């Protein structure tokens, strides 16, 4: 199998710069949210659609970043 639709974007989440990567492996979509520096994983999610994976990962990341403030 291969990775399909690998994408990486930068955005701000709760005032924190993050990088979001998403891709599809097999029938599953993966999304990871990292802090922009140093790039440690804040949250990750897997789902059957890209939208669900991104939503779940971003919600988890937002919650974690809120707790850290």
């Amino acid at each position, binding site marked *: 199998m291969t*990775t399909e639709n*690998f994408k990486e974007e930068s955005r701000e989440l709760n005032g924190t710069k993050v990088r979001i990567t998403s891709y599809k*492996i097999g029938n599953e979509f993966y999304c990871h949210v990292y*802090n922009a*520096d*140093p*790039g440690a994983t804040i949250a*990750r999610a897997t789902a059957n659609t890209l939208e669900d994976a991104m939503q779940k990962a971003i919600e988890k990341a937002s919650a974690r970043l809120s707790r*850290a403030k």
Partner: protein
Amino acid sequence: MNDYAIPDVLVSTEWVDQHKFDPNVVVVEVDVDTKAYEEGHVPGALGWNWQTQLCDTLRRDVISKADLEKLLSESGVSSDTTLILYGDNNNWFAAWAFWQLKMYGHEDVRIMNGGRKKWLAEGRVITKEVRQPKATTYTAKERDESFRSYLMQVQQAMSQKDTVMVDVRSGDEYTGKVLSPAGLPETCQRGGHIPGAVNVPWSQACNEDGTFKSKEELEALYGTKGVEANKNIIAYCRIGERSSHTWFVLKYLLGYPNVSNYDGSWTEWGNLVGAPVEKEAPVKATKEMAS
């Protein structure tokens, strides 16, 4: 690969694709995200967990000789094995593994330029299958402590003009605006940096695709901060892993002879009673330390 000082320490994704099943090659993925390997990895690659397999899990220290020998034996590695490391996020923890393997004298260890991100982005084949290697009996060399700086050496180095300390954390950590990167636990009592240290965030050594910048770009990046070949260079970060990446860049890609990693880093210094702390960037100090 490029005109790096020691170009053999890097291999391309293409090279790994062609050689991943060679009998004398062992490919290992080491990620900051310890779950990433399970999503899929380079066919034949093993996965090492930096939190449990690449450190002493009882006291704060690098992996012991005995544990490294066990890990490498179970991974099917012999002293003449070509060991290829790669990982997520610019090979952050692949460099951590590289540093420790070099401390214990493994001769042929290399990093896949671009790491996991480049492999995935190029749409190369991955698998979830975990290979079961044939065990070996690996004997490591005695640890070479010259690759490492301890607290006392750092304290002594502060007053030496031929030494430059490189804080490779983010600008906000360096100035003490934050005590830890966003979303990570705060592991120090005070923010700031070791007086006199210059700030060159580790990931500036890499391009967007995760590959290392060219030798010329790296020389310029570090040279403007006074980090040059004729200096005794000590790199540090929060717990010593980002600085192992910078150590790799300075020692192998630029070929600077005297580079060490202060793995005690800010979690040691920033918790030390009475240790001097600086928050502002030492503009003058940069030039003075370089001269």
